[in-house]
């Protein structure tokens, strides 16, 4: 297992998990979610292959109401 930081909170994941695996774990289809790993934007086409590492900082962002 590895532990990443997901939106500021510790999240354990099986070793070898990709960004897409993480999205499935939390029940997101990833369509309307922006993903940043260590502050880099990860485009949808790269999510199935990008493997997460111990200590990675992952931010998942969505559009919410705003003026």
């Amino acid at each position, binding site marked *: 297992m590895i532990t990443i930081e997901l*939106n*500021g909170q510790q999240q354990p994941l099986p070793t070898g998990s990709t960004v897409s695996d993480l999205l499935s774990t*939390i*029940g*997101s289809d990833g*369509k*309307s*979610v*922006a993903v*940043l790993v260590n502050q880099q*934007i990860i*485009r949808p086409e790269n999510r199935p292959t990008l493997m997460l590492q111990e200590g990675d900082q992952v*931010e*998942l*962002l*969505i*559009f*919410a*109401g*705003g*003026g």
Partner: protein
Amino acid sequence: MDLLQLGSHSFSSRLILGTGKFSNAAVMLQAVRASGAQLVTVALRRFNREQAEDDLFGPLSTIEGVTLMPNTSGASTAAEAVRAAHISRELSGSAFIKVEIHPNPQHLMPDPIETFEAARILAKEGFLVMPYITADPVLAKRLEEVGCAAVMPLGSAIGSGQGLANAAMIELIIRESSIPVIVDAGLRSPSEAAHAMEMGCGAVLVNSAVAVAGNPPEMAEAFAEAVAAGRKAFRAGLMQKSGSAIATSPLTAFLGATL
């Protein structure tokens, strides 16, 4: 046809609607539909699996003819705003970005220096930059010169409902500007939106006035009608003001002469 031109995009609606502060997403969507708005603002926030219904991208993208204009709310520097813009573009696929940098939560006044810097960078990168600014004609002109698609001076403080407190300065901005001037923030009533349009604004952006109204969809419709009426009046050409009365009926004293 009278269209709002923003960069290479044109819109028949001149009402831009914000999506914050609604009691729930269903009411917000009804209000967006009722408003006829074709540009709708959204904000970035962290995904929360307990509040999945907060995700507005899916529901908003089902409304035909709506383009999302993400804002950079939460940014307190130009660098943060640029970063928010990049992330937003990934999500929305839209080049529109409302640059909104207000470091002080007490008054939410935009930081002109950071806003200018962010706008300059983002316009160069090809974004359609819509900066939220204080009603400052000099700043507005500088933003136009660096390639902003519009300028968005505030009518009064965000969410205050104090209306067009800066009307005189906004008129100055309109007079000097070659890009659309959009009043953003502070409006409370449709009549204020009509007034802004009569002055020559290209559009108005409303959020709180609709979101916290007793009946948000009805208020959205009222704003749409007011914006359309104000625009029509502007195009029709308002009469000149006069310091004294000018009679509308003939004043020849024939009655005194014949009776």
